[in-house]
């Protein structure tokens, strides 16, 4: 029982990461109809926003400590972060400790700007081009972004811990009447889940309770006609792109403490996020979110020993297997709209 509850928690947690990434992707892919292979890169850049902020806070000046030696036998250079010098050691340490949550604020303008530039400078010219061309150009862009990050941060993962207070884990089981220490779950992962819920809710609200979503949907189906109705669809597409980039970036920022960011994390998530979006159904935000959680939970269950011992290797393929089954059972995934990317 406890094992199952733990895996449900894991599934929800994984699912929220999948759902968040898929949400951003579906805004561009399912709604604007652009096959965006650079979406993973946006996620990755989000994570590196957290890295960058933490590096900025850690920018240090060096003083020599003659009592210690560095690896070449010279006096050791001791580093003191500027923020500690400027704001005092406590505030400085707090800033450094809280750099990931602070990066949320830091990343939003950056990601929105990246989204705008990307749409205006590049994607705009590709709305009417075949999907294959979109794939090629965004894949090229993804590689370029990735390589830029690599040449600045290296290929190795960069540890980016959560604030001290979120580092422990929470005894969840006690709440449910289990013995202590049976069902514990890391705080930060719970934060991630809550954060994902807020973002997903926010995006839904924005698209449901405003006409924005309807206009963009209409614009994707028939740009020309929407223009005839006096609507500047280009502007809205750009905003949509900025929004999607921000969602991807925020998903990345918050993910940084879960797994140390590295330059190819975007590619690792890319295929998966496409699968999630398509299983959810093209053009459906609820579908993408639902598929994210569904696949997250199934993946968690498939990795249980009890399951693996029955079907060896099931955890390797579960996502794809489920994707195949769902797409065969339902022509347009869980909640796909007719006519979106079916040709």
């Amino acid at each position, binding site marked *: 029982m406890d094992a199952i509850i733990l895996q449900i928690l894991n599934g929800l947690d994984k699912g929220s990461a999948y759902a968040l990434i898929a949400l951003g992707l579906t805004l561009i892919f399912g709604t604007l109809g652009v096959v965006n292979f650079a979406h993973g890169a946006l996620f990755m850049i989000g994570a590196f926003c957290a890295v960058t902020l933490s590096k900025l806070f850690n920018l240090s000046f060096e003083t020599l400590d003659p009592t210690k030696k560095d690896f070449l036998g010279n006096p050791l250079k001791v580093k003191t972060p500027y923020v500690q010098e400027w704001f005092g050691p406590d505030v400085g340490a707090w800033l450094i400790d809280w750099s990931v949550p602070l990066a949320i604020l830091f990343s939003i303008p950056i990601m929105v700007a990246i989204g705008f530039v990307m749409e205006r400078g590049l994607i705009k010219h590709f709305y009417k081009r075949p999907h294959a061309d979109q794939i090629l150009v965004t894949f090229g862009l993804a590689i370029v972004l990735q390589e830029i990050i690599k040449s600045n941060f290296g290929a190795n993962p960069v540890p980016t811990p959560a604030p001290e207070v979120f580092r422990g884990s929470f005894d969840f089981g006690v709440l449910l009447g289990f013995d202590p220490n049976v069902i514990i779950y890391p705080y930060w992962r719970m934060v991630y889940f809550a954060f994902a819920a807020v973002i997903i809710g926010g995006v839904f609200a924005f698209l449901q309770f405003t006409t924005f979503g309807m*206009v963009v949907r*209409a614009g994707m*189906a*028939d740009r*020309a006609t*929407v*223009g*005839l109705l*006096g609507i500047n669809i280009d502007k809205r597409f750009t905003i949509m792109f900025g929004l999607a980039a921000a969602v991807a970036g925020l998903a990345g920022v918050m993910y940084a403490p879960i797994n140390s960011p590295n330059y190819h994390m975007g590619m690792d998530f890319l295929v998966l996020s496409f699968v999630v979006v398509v299983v959810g159904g093209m053009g459906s935000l609820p579908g993408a979110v639902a598929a994210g959680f569904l696949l997250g939970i199934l993946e968690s269950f498939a990795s249980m020993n009890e399951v693996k011992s029955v079907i060896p290797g099931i955890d390797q393929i579960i996502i794809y297997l489920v994707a195949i089954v769902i797409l065969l059972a339902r022509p347009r995934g869980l909640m796909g709209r007719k006519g979106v990317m079916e040709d």
Partner: protein
Amino acid sequence: MNVKPDFSKGHNLAETAPAFLSVWNMEAYYGESYIVQNISFNVHEGEILALLGRNGAGKTSTLRSIARMDNPQVTKGEIWLDHQPLHKMKSYEAAQAGIGLVPEDRSIIPGLTVEENLQLAQIAPPVGWSLDRLYDLFPRLGERRKQEGVTLSGGEQQMLAIARALARDIKVLLLDEPYEGLAPVIVDEIEKTLRIIKEQGITTILVEQNAVRALELADRSVILDTGSVVFDGSAKEVLSNAELRAEYLAI
């Protein structure tokens, strides 16, 4: 035959344009093919102009050019609407300036219900008729308001397309074959509606294959052939000129 409009006064059409809507030396291309070949004509405020011609004459292309759609591309010429330079605008700006186009394929937006199709028209200013008023005019649409627009029958779609144009506060209504696919009773209805619209002071350009019907309604007529204006004059004149009718309208 009427005298061709006089543009000799020079470029500053904003001041001198003799009419409400002026199209002046307009040329337009689809890619490499030269479709609209130096067209000029005027429409006066509040009148109905019948734009006639054979299949492929360039009627649709002319309307699309005026509405500033991406295709065909206008490469030369000027279009003025009530002292506003349409030729410098994008299609959404032209729409905000008062152009309303009912396209020949109706362009009902897939994925949206009837009502959403109408709401969409009222997002950008200026807003025209209210939804209630539109449903009064087309009760059939009121009954189907929650149905997806593209599943409407052909005639219902045509009504929706016209209603959608009226949902915006337009100065000029461009109608591309509005009677097509409509039952004769409905055609009568629409004709009545067009008269109502005319009474409201809205200027209309009507493209129609059923030339007789169109001419009976229209004040003036322009006839196109292979992308050029071959006639510009009063509607009555066409009806009475058998040669013209035979050569360009086959009636």
